[in-house]
């Protein structure tokens, strides 16, 4: 028998006036964003002076043409091969260190750890994890390039520089992300164990970590991709490897050599990204950054995931492939550490200590004059403008590319593949997919400062070349992330739209964007935080902002001034993180 309440009242049936999806809060953020973009364009000099340097085009054209005949001299190739291996080794060692430190710190920074360990002292647990989180935010706020310059000045030219410059900030980032993953993992199974008398440590190990593992691993692979890009950038400041070779070639205007370096980077990045993507898919982890939206996973999606998981037939070759990869990782880490011949004693040698003391004694900020305050404010505005422009470019471009570069759209059997049409057009679809993926790969493989130097041929110096370089590099990263989001979307709702007769664009409008837009926005905002930190890199090669001042102060050993600039910069990134978090909450 089924009894239904009588009171399905008139209230529910009465017609409602249409309500906009823009709540007041969202509307305010939208207006603020528009204002920020307009302001950034103004600061970039848009409409006030000419931005394009037509005089630089012939040289730019030479540079482009050189792409067709890269330097293939065997001696040079061997040099490049070695540089490639060095960059890879930096990335492997940096990732290895940051993952192990990050896991430890991440557990300590998670609320669930303290709640499980000290269930009774909830009011003590909170300060504990807040302290750990606050302590982690400082190394994270400083870009790896600045860490690199710092280590360079106390260790000299040493492979430790690159490894540490990656490991220090990345450990903190990994810790933050891991702690969020742990906190977002459903904790009921853990609680269920605790409530049947399981000691907290065992319960944590048994009830929480296994469930978090897929997300932890997937993020680890993503971190490895990031480390590889950072290793290339660190080369640019002199830490050796591919980035360094590329910079040398660019400075001596040997474009053929430059392109050899580009191709090496593209191959290396492409290989690593493909391998990591494939491995994640074979291990059954689809999304790699599912945390930045904070959306609770809905049970229906889980049920579907279960069904698809159970229908998936595990091919034995898959298992071999995964095992082979894992064994490869296990061998690669010690091999890379060995090949770089890291000499950890350098860290506590007398010379290092002396240099460190020198820097620390000089790093007493003097009295800040009004003049300085004004210039710092100017540079802060420039930095913000650069990051906003870069974010808009990367975000909008990323959304477009997310559809072009997703496997599940245009290919035969894909969602937007015309129904009833077979084979015809699939060549076009494949080449569209290939081209867009290549564009994304090239944009993210080439380090930002190199892009900035290239754009300086055709643009007048200022924040615009910096913003475009940042935007392009981040577009490459964001486009790939967003394409994966599109690929991982449950396609039943979309296919049902399709069978209703919706056109391709309608399907995107009704099926994809509503489900994915919050996540896309969250990714873009998250990327904005990254862009802001990365403005330092382009600042170093002359694009404006605080980064440029930091570069000047570093080269003139003005450590007192540097401390002031860095503090302003860190303050700025904190504020940006808060804004971004608030906006991500609003779009949820």
């Amino acid at each position, binding site marked *: *028998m*089924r*009894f*239904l*309440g*009588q*009171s*399905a009242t008139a209230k529910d049936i009465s017609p409602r006036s249409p309500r906009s999806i823009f709540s007041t809060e969202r509307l305010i953020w939208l207006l603020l964003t528009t204002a920020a973009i307009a302001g950034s364009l103004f600061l970039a000099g848009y409409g006030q002076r000419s931005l394009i340097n037509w005089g630089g085009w012939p040289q730019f054209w030479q540079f482009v043409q050189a792409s067709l005949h890269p330097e293939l001299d065997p001696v040079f190739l061997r040099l490049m091969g070695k540089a490639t291996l060095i960059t890879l080794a930096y990335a492997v060692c940096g990732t290895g260190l940051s993952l192990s430190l990050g896991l430890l710190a991440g557990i300590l920074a998670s609320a669930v750890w303290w709640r499980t360990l000290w*269930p*009774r002292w909830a009011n003590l647990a909170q300060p504990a994890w807040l302290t750990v989180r606050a302590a982690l935010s400082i190394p994270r706020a400083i870009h790896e390039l600045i860490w690199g310059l710092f280590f360079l000045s106390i260790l000299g030219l040493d492979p430790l520089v690159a490894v540490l410059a990656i490991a220090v900030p990345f450990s903190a980032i990994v810790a933050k992300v891991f702690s969020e993953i742990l906190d977002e993992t459903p904790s*009921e*199974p853990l*609680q*269920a*164990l605790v*409530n*049947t*008398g*399981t*000691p907290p*440590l*065992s*319960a944590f*190990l*048994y*009830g929480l970590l*296994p*469930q978090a*593992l*897929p997300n932890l691993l997937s993020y680890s692979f993503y971190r490895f991709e990031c480390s590889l890009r950072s290793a290339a950038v660190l080369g640019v400041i002199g830490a050796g490897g591919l980035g360094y070779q590329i910079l040398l070639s660019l400075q001596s205007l040997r474009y053929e050599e430059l392109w050899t370096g580009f191709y090496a980077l593209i191959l290396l990045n492409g290989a690593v990204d493909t391998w990591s993507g494939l491995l994640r898919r074979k291990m059954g982890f689809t999304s790699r950054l599912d945390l930045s939206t904070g959306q609770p996973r809905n049970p229906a999606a*889980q049920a579907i*995931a*279960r069904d698809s*998981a*159970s229908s998936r037939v595990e091919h034995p070759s898959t298992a071999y492939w995964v095992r082979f990869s894992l064994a490869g990782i296990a061998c690669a880490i010690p091999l890379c550490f060995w090949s770089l011949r890291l000499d950890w004693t350098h860290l506590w040698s007398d010379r290092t200590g002396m240099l460190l003391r020198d820097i620390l004694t000089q790093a007493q900020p003097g009295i800040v004059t009004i003049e300085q305050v004004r210039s710092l404010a100017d540079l802060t505005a420039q930095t913000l403008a650069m990051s906003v422009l870069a974010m808009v470019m990367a975000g909008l471009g990323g959304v477009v590319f997310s559809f072009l570069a997703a496997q599940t759209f245009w290919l035969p059997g894909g969602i937007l593949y015309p129904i009833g049409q077979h084979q015809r057009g699939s060549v076009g679809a494949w080449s569209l997919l290939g081209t867009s993926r290549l564009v994304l790969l090239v944009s993210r493989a080439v380090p930002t400062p190199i892009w900035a130097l290239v754009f300086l041929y055709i643009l007048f110096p200022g924040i615009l070349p910096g913003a475009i370089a940042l935007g392009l590099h981040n577009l490459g990263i964001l486009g790939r992330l967003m394409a994966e989001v599109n690929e991982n979307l449950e396609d039943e709702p979309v296919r049902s739209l399709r069978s209703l007769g919706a056109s391709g664009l309608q399907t995107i409008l009704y099926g994809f964007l509503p489900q994915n837009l919050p996540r896309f926005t969250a990714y873009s905002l998250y990327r904005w935080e990254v862009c802001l930190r990365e403005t330092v890199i382009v600042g170093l090669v002359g694009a404006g902002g605080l980064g440029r001042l930091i570069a000047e102060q570093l080269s003139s050993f003005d450590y007192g001034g540097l401390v002031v600039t860095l503090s302003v910069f860190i303050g700025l990134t904190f504020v940006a993180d808060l804004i971004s978090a608030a906006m991500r909450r609003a779009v949820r």
Partner: protein
Amino acid sequence: MRHPSPLFELKQVSCRFNQVAALSQISLRIYPGERIALVGPSGAGKSTLLSLLNGTLAPSQGQVWVMGQNLAQARATSRRRVQRQIGMVYQQHHLIRNLAVIHNVNAGHLGYWPLWKAAWSLVWPLQVDQAAAALAQVGIADKLYARTDRLSGGQQQRVALARVLVQNPAVILADEPIASVDPERSRDIMDLLRHLSDTTGKTLVISLHEVDFARSHCDRVIGLREGKLRFDCPVSAASDSLFRDLYALSGEPQAVELR
């Protein structure tokens, strides 16, 4: 009074979540070997009551005594010692979804295993025979190494039961153990619980909506509604009209299923 010392004793217990009073002024005693059916419409406070009994929740007012201990004040170790004696089967299973079934069953040992043993067992499962026997008892012997989230809801329910078998507690609390299972399997599960109680003397506290099963498998019914104790009597004394009143709608728009 049949036995001198109760397993559970609730003294004037109230439990509120912010403004919602999930339970108010409940007093009751549960003795070893009893088989209790906990009935009442959705939102009546059944899950809340079970959480109080196993120490997941502390009452906002009143005291909960379990095996002679006031759980809210007990030290962590003695509290754990009590909790090991209480097995719980949850409405939503709460299994570790991406582990193999064997590990979920072995989680029943965790109250007794040291940390190293728990860690090692994740790599190389220990006490496999016992787990296999438990799974055979609940009728899914072939799923020993299957991944838990690839099982159906009813099969997961059985894994949760197998875990309790391995834990071998003195009391089994079950929160709607047959809500997601077809009628035949429901009977199986209820039979199994009843059998455990008959053979090993385990105390049962089962929340359910199925009046027939309450009658056939339990010997005492506790009726809850809107957080209040409506009745608490032997099944023989619980009439149809008593149940009908308990589940009757009071103008609240709410769908209730009565079987």
